[in-house]
C-alpha cells in the first residue's frame, strides 16, 4: 500500500456540526388526565422513571428530615420489610436513586424494560405506603452521623460547607449543612408527617426516558393513571428570603493537613437571570474546562494543584459562583494571588478571537455530549422544567454561542467578577 504523504503539523480541517437536533420530551396524558413527559430514545431496552416533587427542604429544620425521608422511604411499607423491597429491586436488576435538596426532591427508578411491569409497582408502593420503621431510622441516624464525621475530616468538605453558609446564611436551606443534632432529633412521627405533606403525587413531575414503548406506557397507566389525581398547582415557593451577601474572608484550621482547600466566590443568580447564559460562557473561559485559564495557569504552568475549576450553582431562587481547588499548604497564598490575577485579566483585557472560538467550539461539543443518550436528554429536560424554562432556553444558548463577542465577555466579567466582591474560604 502506498501512503499519501501527510502533513502532521497541520490540524485537519474543522467542520461545524450541522444543525443540532434536540430530541424533545413529549407530553403524554394518562387515563386520569395527569400529564407525564416522555423521551423515547436510545437503542437499549432500559427505562428510567423519574418522579420529582417540586418542594424540598424549605427551612433549616426540614433539611435533615427531607434527606431521611427520602432515603428511608424504601425501608418499609405496611406489608413489606426493607429487605423484601430491596430484594425485589435487586432481583430484577433494578435500582432506585433518590435526591433531596432545598428546591425539589425525587426518586429515579432504573429498570430493564422487560421488568418494568414488576419494578414500577414497587416504587408506587413506597410512595403510597412508606411506613418508616423505628429500627431503620436508628441505623440511618448512626450511619449519617458517621458519614458526617468522616466528611468533616476532608478539607474540601469543610471549605464547601463554610462557603455555602457564608453566602446564604446558616438558617437558609441553600446555606445550611445539617449537624449531628439535626440527625439525632428526627422522629418517625416527624418523618411520616413530612412524607404526607411533601410527596403528594398530584404535584409531581414525571419524566420517563429510554425505550418507552406501548407496554411501558401501559404499565405507567395501570400504576399511576387509574385513579384520579386532584388538580393542585405546583406548590408556592415556601423558602425564606435570602440574606444580603457581604464578601468576607474565612480561615478554617485543620491541624496536620498537607493541602488547603480554597473556595472563592459569591452569590450570583439562577437560570432566569438575563446574564446567566453569557456568564456560563465566561465561567468556562475561567475554569470550566481542562484548557481553562485557571487550569492552564495554576496546574499546567505552576504545578500547584491536581485540579482547579470554577462553576455556577443555580438554585430556583438564586445561585452562586465559585472557584475551588486543593493545593499544597505552602502555595496557598500564591494560588489565591493567581486566582485574583485571572479574574482581573477577564475584567480588563478583551479575550482574543482565537481563545473565544476555541471556547465556543468546545461548548458546542459539550452541548452535543449533554444531549447524547436518553438519560442525558431527560436530565437536560429536567434542568429546564424545574427552573420553569422550556426548550427555547437551549435555542437561546446555541444562538449565544454563535454570536457572543469579546466585548460581551468583558462586560459580563466587569459586572460580576471583581475579586473584592467575592468571599474567600480556606480550610487546611
Amino acid at each position, binding site marked *: *500500500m502506498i*501512503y499519501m504523504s*501527510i502533513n*502532521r503539523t497541520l*490540524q485537519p480541517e*474543522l467542520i*461545524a*456540526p450541522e444543525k*443540532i437536533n434536540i430530541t424533545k420530551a413529549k407530553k403524554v396524558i394518562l387515563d386520569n388526565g395527569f400529564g407525564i413527559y416522555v423521551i423515547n*430514545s*436510545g437503542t*437499549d*431496552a*432500559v427505562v428510567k422513571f423519574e418522579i420529582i416533587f417540586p418542594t424540598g427542604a424549605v427551612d433549616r429544620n426540614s433539611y435533615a428530615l427531607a434527606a431521611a425521608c427520602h432515603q428511608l422511604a424504601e425501608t418499609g411499607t405496611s406489608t413489606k420489610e*426493607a429487605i423484601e423491597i*430491596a*430484594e425485589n*429491586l*435487586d*432481583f*430484577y*436488576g433494578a*435500582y432506585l436513586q433518590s435526591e433531596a435538596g432545598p428546591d425539589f426532591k425525587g426518586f429515579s427508578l432504573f429498570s*430493564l424494560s422487560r421488568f418494568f411491569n414488576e419494578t414500577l409497582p414497587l416504587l408506587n408502593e413506597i410512595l403510597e405506603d412508606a411506613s418508616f420503621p423505628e429500627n*431503620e431510622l436508628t*441505623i440511618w441516624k*448512626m*450511619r449519617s452521623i*458517621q*458519614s458526617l*464525621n*468522616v466528611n468533616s*475530616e*476532608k*478539607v474540601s468538605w469543610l471549605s464547601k460547607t463554610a462557603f455555602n453558609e457564608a453566602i446564604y446564611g446558616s438558617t437558609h436551606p441553600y446555606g445550611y449543612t445539617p449537624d449531628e443534632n439535626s440527625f439525632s432529633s428526627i422522629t418517625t412521627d416527624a418523618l411520616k408527617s413530612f412524607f404526607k405533606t411533601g410527596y403528594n403525587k398530584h404535584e409531581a413531575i414525571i419524566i420517563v426516558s429510554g425505550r418507552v414503548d406501548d407496554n411501558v406506557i401501559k404499565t405507567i397507566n395501570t400504576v399511576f393513571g387509574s385513579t384520579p389525581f386532584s388538580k393542585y398547582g405546583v406548590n408556592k415557593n415556601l423558602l425564606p428570603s435570602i440574606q444580603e451577601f457581604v464578601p468576607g474572608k474565612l480561615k478554617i484550621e485543620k491541624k*496536620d493537613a*498537607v*493541602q488547603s482547600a480554597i473556595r472563592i466566590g459569591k452569590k450570583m443568580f439562577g437560570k432566569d437571570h438575563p446574564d446567566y447564559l453569557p456568564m456560563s460562557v465566561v465561567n468556562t473561559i475561567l475554569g470550566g*474546562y*481542562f*484548557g481553562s485559564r485557571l487550569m492552564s495557569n495554576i*496546574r*499546567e*504552568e*505552576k*504545578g*500547584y*494543584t*491536581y485540579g482547579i475549576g470554577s462553576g455556577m450553582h443555580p438554585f430556583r431562587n438564586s445561585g452562586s459562583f465559585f472557584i475551588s481547588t*486543593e493545593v*499544597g499548604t505552602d502555595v496557598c497564598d500564591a494560588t489565591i494571588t493567581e486566582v485574583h490575577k485571572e479574574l482581573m485579566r477577564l475584567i480588563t483585557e478583551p479575550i482574543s478571537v482565537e481563545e473565544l*472560538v*476555541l*471556547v465556543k*467550539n*468546545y461548548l*458546542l*461539543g459539550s452541548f452535543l455530549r449533554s444531549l*447524547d*443518550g436518553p438519560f442525558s436528554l431527560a436530565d437536560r429536560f429536567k434542568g429546564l422544567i424545574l427552573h420553569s424554562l422550556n426548550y427555547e432556553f437551549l435555542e437561546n444558548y446555541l444562538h449565544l454561542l454563535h454570536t457572543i463577542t469579546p466585548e460581551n465577555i468583558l462586560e459580563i466579567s466587569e459586572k460580576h467578577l471583581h475579586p473584592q466582591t467575592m468571599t474567600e474560604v480556606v480550610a487546611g
Partner: protein
Amino acid sequence: MVDFEKFELANGLKVIVNTDTSTPLVAMNILYKVGARNERPDKTGFAHLFEHLMFGGSVNIPNYDEPLQMAGGENNAFTSNDFTNYYLTIPAENLETAFWLESDRMLSLAFSMDSLDVQRNVVVEEFRQRYLNQPYGDAWLLLRPMAFKVHPYQWATIGKEVSHIENATIEDVKSFFSKHYHPANAILTLSGNITTERARQLTEKWFGPILFQPVETLEIPVEPLQQSRRELRVEKDVPYDAIYKAWHSCSRYDKNYHATDLLTDVLSGGKSSRLYNSLVKDKKLFSNVSAYMLGDLDPSLVVVEGKLVSGITPEIAEKALDEELKKVIDEPINERELAKVRQKAESGLIFGEMNHANRALNLAYFEMLGDVNLINNELDAYRNVTSENIRQTAQSIFTESNCSVLNYMAKK
C-alpha cells in the same frame, strides 16, 4: 449484545469499530498494554506519571488539548495496574482531528523538560489530595504490600512514595515510551457515528506509517502461595475504626472469575445483600461494609472493607464477618438468590454499555484479554455460574492462611 468489526494494520495496531448512527458523536479509546505492574520496584508510579506526560505535546503538535477542544472534543485518561487508557469523544464531523492527535503521540512525544517538571508537581499534589489528605486515603498503600510480597501489585498506580515521582528523569520517560508506546502494544476502538470503512481509511492514513516494533515479553514475578494470616494495626487521625480484609483470589482470565464476582455480589451487591443486612442492620457492628474483587490480569484480591460502629472492637467485627463467610461456604445459595445476582450482573452489563465511551473502553478491554468476542460471552458466563460454583469458590478463597487484615484504628 455489542456489534463490531475488527481489523489490524500491518504495524500490529488492532482496531475495533462499533457503529451507531443515532448519535452525532464518536468515542475513541486507545488502550496501551502497560500499567503499574510493568514498573520496577525502585521506580513506582511511573506509568501513571507518564500518562500525564502524554498531554505535554507530541513530536509535531506542541499542545494536545487545544486542537481537540477547538474541534469540540473532550478527553481524559486513567492508569490501572494492568493498562493505561486514553479516551475522547468528539463530534463525528471532526473525528479526523482525533486521529491526527492520537497518531502523533503514538509516533513520538516532544519530551519537554518543562512538562516533566510541572507534571511531577501535579502528580505529587494528586498523591497528597487523594491518598494523604483524605481520611483512610492511604489504606490501600498499606494493604497492598501486606498482601503481595513479590508481585508488583504490591504498589498502587500512584506509586509507593512521593520520592519515586520526584526522582523521575527525562531518560526514564524516553525509555518508557520507546518500550511500551507503539502500535503492536495498543488497541484502538471507536464507538458512535463512524462506519468501519471510514475508520479503516483514517486509521491507515494516520496510524499506518508508524513503524512496527515487537512487543517485549514481560517477566512479572509470580506471587507465592500465602502460608499464614498477616495482620497490621495502624492508628491514624480518623473518626472511626475500619477493617480491610483481603484474600488472594483468581485472575480475570480464570474460569472462576464470574463465580467470584457473583460471590462478592451475594455478600454485598445492593441493599438486599448478606453483609449489609447481617452486619449493619441486624447486628449493628458496621456502619457500612462492602465486598469486591479486583479482577486484575494476574491473580489478585477479594476484599471486604467496612467502618465499625463506635465501641465495637475489630475482633468482634471480624468474627461476625467470618461467620457470614462461613455460611456461604457451608450452604449453597438458593435458586432465588442465584437468579438475583445473575440478573443484577446482566443489568449491570446493559446499563454499563449504554454510553459510547464505556462501550469503546469495554471493546478495548476484552481485546486486551485476548479476544474482543468475549464481550458478548459475558452474559452467558454469568448465567452459567451455579450455586455450587459459588460455594466452592468461597471455600477456596476464605481461609485464614490466605488473608491479610488491616485494622485501621482511630487515634484515641
